[in-house]
């Protein structure tokens, strides 16, 4: 990926320029921060409930892994049930009905009305 000549710019010219600019700006930000101990607009990471964040991220990745195996209906129901019960625990009936309704309604909207294709999975539904 060459940068070419000025009268015949190559595909690498803009990424090269952008990279240099990004380096300069990052350096400036770093120096300013060090010089003044600036906190800027950072919300920071104080008080972050990391376990919840990890659980959500793992659940999202689990969705991508389970979808081709279990199919849309089962995967979505399980993921939604976990989100309702595992992250901010709800009563069982709230979690179950929330997971069931959201699964069915999104299936009707996307698969039936908008004709999107979802994997059926090993159980074929």
């Amino acid at each position, binding site marked *: *990926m060459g940068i070419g*000549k*000025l*009268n*015949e*710019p*190559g*595909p*690498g*010219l*803009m*990424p090269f320029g*952008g*990279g240099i*600019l*990004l380096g300069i*700006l*990052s350096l*400036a*930000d770093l120096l*300013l921060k060090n010089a003044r101990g*600036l*906190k*800027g*607009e*950072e*919300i*920071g*990471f104080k*008080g*972050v*409930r990391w376990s*919840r*964040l990890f659980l*959500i*991220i793992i659940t*999202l*990745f689990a*969705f*991508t892994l389970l*979808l*081709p195996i279990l199919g849309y209906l089962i995967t*979505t129901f399980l*993921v*939604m049930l976990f*989100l*309702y019960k595992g*992250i*901010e625990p*709800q009563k069982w009936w*709230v979690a179950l009905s*929330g997971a069931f309704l*959201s699964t069915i309604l*999104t299936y009707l909207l*996307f698969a039936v009305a*908008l*004709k*999107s*294709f*979802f994997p059926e999975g090993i159980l074929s539904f």
Partner: protein
Amino acid sequence: MEFFENILYGFQVAGQPINLLYCFIGVLIGTLVGVLPGIGPAGAISLLLPVTFHIPPVSAIIMLAGIYYGSMYGGSTTSILVNIPGEATSVVTCLDGYQMARQGRAGPALGIAAFGSFIAGTLSVIGLMFLVHPLANVALRFGPPEFFTLMCLGLILVTYLARGSMIKALIMAVFGIILSFVGMDIFTAQQRFTFHIPQLMDGVGLIPLVMGLFGISEVLIHIGAPVPQEILKAKIHNLFPNLKDWKQSIMPIFRGTGLGFFLGILPGAGAITSPLMSYAIEKKLSKSPEKFGTGAIEGVAGPEAANNAASGGAFIPLLSLGIPPNIMMALLLGALMIHGIFPGPFFIKKYPELFWGTVVSMYIGNVMLLILNLPLIPLWVRVLRIPYKILFPLILLFCLIGVYSLNNSLFDVTLMIFFGILGYFLRRSGFELAPLVLAFVLGPIMERTFRQSLIISGGSFSIFIQRPIAAASLLITFILLCYSLIRYVKRE
């Protein structure tokens, strides 16, 4: 005469039952996300982008535009009733709106916000119709150097008006441009930054990017810091402002409309800055400025009109030049591009039904919003009571299915999750995401026009200063950069 024929044509397009339905859905969702503090219009538009593939482009744009200006209406409801701005544009409305509500005048506050928004929204649509045509004619004289420099100016303005550090906003803009280079080069078809992953050959998708940055990261941020939910228990009655309220509000509404409309045209945060400026102007012009902050109705009417007018003005640079002035317009541009439509000087001539249909639908949408907002306020108050712990799984599910349904690709879903995590850390570290997405959308056009300019000039950068429009844009960009540098040195 031609103008009225066009309007009539617009009514024919927007008045079709299917378009009326999508307009209604758009303004309803817009108001809903405006009310809910956990999700903004950018998040809602990105959530609904996949749905727009299945519907005609006119209906899609009518619906997405409805979400944008609908959210401006909805944002005021939470500001007045809960003292939490549903949108950044409604921050100022909290100052006097909430005080009015505490004094038992929530009804007139909500009423004047809705009427002010309606008047401003309607006037700004009229302004849009008059201004887009002449601007598109000027844009016909634009070549690659003019477009390139104008886009540079747009990006600098967006970063200049960023709420946090300008350097960080610039970093995000450059990062967005570099991200847009992923995929095949437009001139040589050479692969760039694809790491031999076939799914990246077409580049990073706009939808996984925005849904990750605005949908997933929003949930990750909120799950760490729950939104307080103290809702005014008082019964809301008498939504129609009385004659005295109208007398006090009508001029602030007109002033806010003019100010918001022109600030909305400028690239940057027009919708955010215009309510602040309107509030400052009204306070200055008022005979009793001490009333501001204690429940002055002018402090609600002016800013609410300003943010709605700005949303109308923002369509002008997008539809006439193809340059989105803010994040919402960048998403609309993305939606148009997905349908193979590129806004620019020829947009009105090439797609009259899209232009006039969308503009007239905004009239209709404003009427719908007025009808919708006043009687539905009790419903919005109920919606506010829905706890975030019920909402967040639904937002996540919509992100997952929305992205998957685009290309039936789990790679896109993984990409979205990655951008969600990235967005979370960027936001926590004080980086704004709007410049990133704006630059990502503009990146390919910037690269094309930059390389075309160099080819035309035989490799000479002087092409950017020899042509008057390009030179003027560059000069303003340079002045803005110098000014912010001087401001920084002075502050030190």
